[in-house]
């Protein structure tokens, strides 16, 4: 069955608008191609996609080299907020951009929920 980009976009938009302190989200392929995105204005979807895939892949490599096992997610914490990369099955990477004020527990829970929705569409 073909992947519905409309459904993916809808899931992302609803995640971004309904979750507190979320600024943007994207689903990309492991090769860095965008599948769907809801990003803040001014962010280049192509660049964000390539960067996201590169980071998760590098994280996997680091996890393996440093004997950390399989990597669940990668956090980038800056003074303006977070970038969280989570593997979304073998065929996709889920990127979430959150405000510095975001509550970690809530954020992870929402990511987990959204991941299962995304996986259902990607399967």
């Amino acid at each position, binding site marked *: 069955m073909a992947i519905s980009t409309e459904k993916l976009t809808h899931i992302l938009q609803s995640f971004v608008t309904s979750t507190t302190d979320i600024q943007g989200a994207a689903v990309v392929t*492991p090769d860095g191609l965008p599948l769907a995105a809801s990003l803040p204005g001014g962010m280049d979807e192509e660049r964000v996609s390539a960067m996201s895939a590169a980071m998760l892949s590098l994280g996997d490599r680091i996890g393996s080299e440093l004997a950390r096992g399989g990597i669940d997610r990668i956090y980038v914490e800056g003074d303006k907020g977070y970038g969280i990369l989570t593997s979304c099955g073998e065929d996709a990477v889920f990127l979430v951009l959150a405000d510095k004020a975001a509550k970690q527990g809530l954020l992870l829970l929402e990511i987990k929920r959204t991941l299962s929705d995304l996986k259902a569409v990607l399967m």
Partner: protein
Amino acid sequence: MSLEPTEFMSKMVSRTGFSADDKKILQDTAAWGLEIAPEMADYFYDYMGRDAEMSAILNESEGRIHRLRETFVSWFHEMFTGMDSWGGDYADRRWRIGLIHVRIGIGPQHVVPAMAVVVHEAGKRAQADGKDQQLCDALSKICMVDLAFIEQAYIEVSSAAVLRETGWSESLFKRLVATGAAAM
């Protein structure tokens, strides 16, 4: 991202228009090629040696410059003989020569102008010896094919190292290079 030498050779031969006539004229003058090879090696390494960075690399170990010079003479002669008619053996040897350049740190920025000097001097010598212009054209083409191997070796070795260390796929790497280049 691993280069297949014969396939690459075939692409380069096609792109440079290196023809059966070019092969014939080179093979017919192979003895002349061997005769002038030491002189061309002098031009090549004299030019390279004028650069301080290259001079340091060429003279880094005992006898390196001597071995490189010998390799140059064989390499130059092989452009005329074509080894196995510019087939798999020729391509493999060119690929290995490219890898040696990468290993010892002689980059395209040094080889390209030095090769231009060789092509120029070989052309002058051909004219002085009453050789046909077609010989110079054929030699220029095969020189460019060989140069492409050296340049490609740098790209392949660098890319392979990045892919191995990062776990990135080849298409992701190409995408990152393209987006990076667009942002420069």
